[in-house]
């Protein structure tokens, strides 16, 4: 019976893993389908939006053919016939939805409607800046939240605790587009310590990273606090105290080690949130990342092919980050694996 339970848990584990991978593929399939089909909802003709009203019919036809827009959008459609009535038409695999998938699997996301550069190249050029920003703000959040949460949790109910709770609550409620410009005002306009925008010098990352990491710092502070409080009530803490260990040692050698497990999970999950939230921060600081590419070059210039690519890459990164954290967490903590 005991031998079987080992195999059973292994099977259970593999099944859970496969289920997760299947779910991941389902989400990715949905995202790709969304970005390929949403372009049909664009009011008016994307070709006219790019080329302008002055474009000749030949130019428009050439543009549409170049970007594959002259092909049917999906497996079937309801085109109007000469009499104005709509009828069902079947196109088979000869459609843009399949085109996008086939190209995507070869690593091709089409060409920018504006500049005709491959969308993949544009994205790869900007991707590192966004990752850099997300990691920097993760670092800042950890540096703020762990000390603050530990101090608050181990001094539960005192004014220090109440003060840090209020700070955390305000931090959660401060959206990046409020805190960002305020930081710019204080540290760039008034004090002149940092450049208001741009990403040339190493210190240019400080203000964007603080802006993006503020809410996360607040969430993490609350988590570290309640985690510390929970662990402080455990038996091993009483044992450690009973054998004469100082309070500082109890917290740093025992409590933190156990209390940080849930915090690590949140960190990983939040990496995805940071990547998606970076859009607003990048806009505030003109940080040359993926979010700015999406907002300014994609949506701002109605370059729908670029919008498709950016939305796809940001969502898939977010989804992958979440799934990976989930899997690693399950692996680390057997209690969750069983349930």
């Amino acid at each position, binding site marked *: 019976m005991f031998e079987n339970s080992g195999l059973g848990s292994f099977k259970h584990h593999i099944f859970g893993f496969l289920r997760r991978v299947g*779910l991941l593929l*389902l*989400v990715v399939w*949905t*995202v790709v389908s*969304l*970005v390929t089909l*949403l*372009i049909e*909802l*664009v*009011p008016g003709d994307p070709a006219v939006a790019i080329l302008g009203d002055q474009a000749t019919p030949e130019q428009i036809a050439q543009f549409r053919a170049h970007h594959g827009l002259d092909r049917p959008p999906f497996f079937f459609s309801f085109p109007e016939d000469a009499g104005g009535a709509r009828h069902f038409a079947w196109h088979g695999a000869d459609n843009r939805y399949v085109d996008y998938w086939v190209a995507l699997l070869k690593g091709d996301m089409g060409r920018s409607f504006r500049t005709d550069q491959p969308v993949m190249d544009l994205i790869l050029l900007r991707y590192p800046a966004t990752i850099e920003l997300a990691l920097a703000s993760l670092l800042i959040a950890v540096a703020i939240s762990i000390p603050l949460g530990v101090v608050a949790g181990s001094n539960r109910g005192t004014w220090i605790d109440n003060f840090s709770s209020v700070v955390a*609550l*305000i931090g*959660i*409620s*401060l*959206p990046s*587009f*409020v805190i*960002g*410009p*305020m930081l*710019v*005002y204080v540290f*760039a*306009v008034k004090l002149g310590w940092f450049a*208001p925008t741009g990403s040339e010098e190493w210190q240019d990352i400080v203000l964007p990273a603080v802006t993006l990491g503020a809410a996360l710092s607040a969430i993490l502070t609350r988590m570290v606090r*309640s985690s510390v*409080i*929970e662990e402080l009530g455990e038996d091993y803490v009483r044992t450690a105290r009973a054998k004469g260990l100082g309070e500082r040692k109890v917290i740093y050698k025992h409590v933190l080690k156990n209390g940080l497990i849930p915090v690590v999970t949140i960190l990983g999950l939040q990496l*995805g*949130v940071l990547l*998606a*939230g970076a*859009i*607003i921060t990048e*806009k*505030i600081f003109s940080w040359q990342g993926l979010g700015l590419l*999406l*907002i300014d070059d*994609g*949506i*701002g210039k109605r370059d*729908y092919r670029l*919008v498709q690519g950016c*939305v796809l890459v*940001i*969502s898939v990164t*977010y*989804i992958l980050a*979440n799934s990976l954290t989930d899997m690693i967490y399950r692996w680390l903590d057997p209690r969750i694996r069983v349930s």
Partner: protein
Amino acid sequence: MNRLAILGFIIVGVLLFVALFAPWIATQDLATINLPMRYLPPSTEHWFGTDALGRDVFARVVYGARISLRVGIVVVLVSAVVGTVLGALAGYFGGWIDRLMSGYVFNVFLAFPGLLLAIALVAFLGAGLNKLILALCIIGWVGYARLIRGQVLKIREYDFVQAARALGAGDLRILFVHILPNAIQPLIVQASLGMAGAVLAEASLSFLGLGVPPPAPSWGVMIEDARGLDRLQAAPHVLIFPGIAIVLTVLAFNFIGDGLREYLDPRQRKR
């Protein structure tokens, strides 16, 4: 009920009052451009000063409450109604609708960054208040559906539901008269937090230029408008007042949501 929740109710009450009686509260016109009067600091005549075009910031913040609350209320109402109906049907009847919802819709929609989906929808549909509301509803209803489905699954096993069935009540009567009224409490919490989320999302999208177009006094638009370097230098108050308005509104709804959750479910009281 905790003090923060009461504070939240007071702030929301003030906000509703301000939004309803905006024309009487803001005596200055919100759209009059008066360039010689630009960048004025707060004074008795212009309580919050004037912006880069000489418009009264107080009037714009007051009218901004209308946009924020309208978006919040419509988005929460539509999402909650759609989510409740679909979630209740899935939870009560099971079958293919439940498999579709709990197997696909919940997993996929909730695995997706909400703000990005809203940005993508607006990017393709075009900017504007109604499209923004539509986008927020499309991402919003799923949370309510999941919540209600779980509630219905739990409540339909209770004795009083069996009793109603034994007395000959039909499925729809059981669902809408007996089950749903008992499932509504967590929905109120979710709606309150949803208001905070919708207000924040509207301001975010308007800030990015994807929501309400500029002359309208959306708080997000006002912040985007005030954050240029020369404007920030000349008149930081133009940025600060709409910023405070957003933060207070979001805080208030979060306070209410957290407070109600504690009040309705003592087991979840914060440690």
